[in-house]
């Protein structure tokens, strides 16, 4: 039985690792290690050596995505085993894979294959180019568009986290110039991500044929828990819609702000961030609505969920 008003949200892959609360959930470390071992065999990568303290895979963009996916799946499994089933689900950026796992649409194995294939397609498209992403906080949409027009019109807004919070994708040199200009214009916070790909932008449109062909071959089920698209905020109700979402997630801009508003409009007031991170909780501090974010551990300890 699902808990009305409770949404599971899954963040993108990490820009930092923290030895954080989900590790304290009973069984987390054991299950994570088990899944990492299985994943290592499947994708032929030493994921079992993952160590959040030494941050050994932080700079490996593909391994980092695998690990975040497995962490999300681990949280999902444990929360559900403890009888907390969300009424709704959403996956931020590459959190889409863990959100689909949680909703019963794909298996762990399929998720890993999707991540690997998507990354191969992306690398092929962006070979020999120097891309990244940045966040700019404190400027409005018009300000951001003016900066882009001024510096490099090819740069794209790839996500909106709030009315004054944006993520941009583009060439590194352009993004660095935009950061400098944004500071002059009064941006309070700017950050160049460690990623080397321009996720959620038209730069990756070329991934569509290859990734679409792969996605059409994998086993995708109808989501058992309603899942909200971070691109257009519609509910994904069929395998076809899930497939389409997976493909366009690579090259279409996201709008986490609207997704948050949609989730709250649908009656969700409790959000559980299924991860060791608190990225989405931090973003939510600036969003409207009377909502509360929980880490998996805090959710388990909350009187809101007496069954725990």
């Amino acid at each position, binding site marked *: 039985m699902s808990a009305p008003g409770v949404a599971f949200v899954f963040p993108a892959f990490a820009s930092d690792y923290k030895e954080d609360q989900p590790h304290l959930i009973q069984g987390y470390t054991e299950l994570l290690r088990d899944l990492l071992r299985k994943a290592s065999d499947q994708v032929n990568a030493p994921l079992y050596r993952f160590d959040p303290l030494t941050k050994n895979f932080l700079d490996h963009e593909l391994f980092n995505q695998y690990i975040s996916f497995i962490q999300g799946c681990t949280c999902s499994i444990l929360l559900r085993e403890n009888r907390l089933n969300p009424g709704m689900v959403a996956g931020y950026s590459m959190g889409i894979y863990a959100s689909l796992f949680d909703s019963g649409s794909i298996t762990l194995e399929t998720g890993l294959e999707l991540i690997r294939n998507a990354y191969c397609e992306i690398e092929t498209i962006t070979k020999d180019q120097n891309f990244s992403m940045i966040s700019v*906080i*404190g*400027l*409005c949409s018009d*300000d951001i568009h003016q900066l882009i027009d001024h510096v490099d019109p090819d740069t794209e807004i790839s996500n909106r986290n709030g009315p*004054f919070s944006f993520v941009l994708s583009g060439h590194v040199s352009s993004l660095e110039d935009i950061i400098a200009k944004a*500071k*002059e*214009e*009064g*941006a*309070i*916070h700017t950050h160049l991500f460690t990623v080397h790909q321009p996720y959620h932008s038209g730069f990756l449109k070329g991934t569509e044929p290859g990734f679409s062909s792969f996605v059409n071959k994998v086993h995708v089920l109808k989501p058992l828990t309603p899942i909200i698209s971070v691109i257009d905020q519609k509910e994904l109700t069929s395998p076809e819609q899930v497939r389409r979402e997976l493909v366009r997630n690579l090259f279409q801009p996201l709008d986490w702000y609207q997704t948050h508003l949609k989730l709250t409009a649908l009656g969700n007031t409790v959000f559980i961030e299924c991860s060791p991170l608190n990225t989405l909780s*931090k973003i939510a*501090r*600036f969003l409207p609505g009377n909502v509360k974010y929980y880490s998996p551990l805090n959710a388990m300890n909350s009187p809101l969920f007496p069954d725990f």
Partner: protein
Amino acid sequence: MMARIDENIRNEVKNVVYNFFADECEVDKASINDQTNIIKDLDGDSLMFLELIEIFKKKYDLDIELKTIGKYAVKHPVSTIGQLIEMQMLIIEHENRLLDLEK
């Protein structure tokens, strides 16, 4: 109209800032003082600064654009709790005319 800053407001701002960082950074409030470095000592970040601004905007119904604060902060960077409190006082006092202080 420019707000008048009295000792009550100053104490109120100080209390909000101290409580905010004690909560956010999960440290004992007694361990924070005006010389505490927000990044080095508390592992704080500019997002916290932004959140505090939002708290004070609501609390005092301030008319100020974020980018006005951003432009001021570039020239007057904040690193300690004391400096942050002083900036918040200026924001409350001058609102969107904050940059006039530069003239």
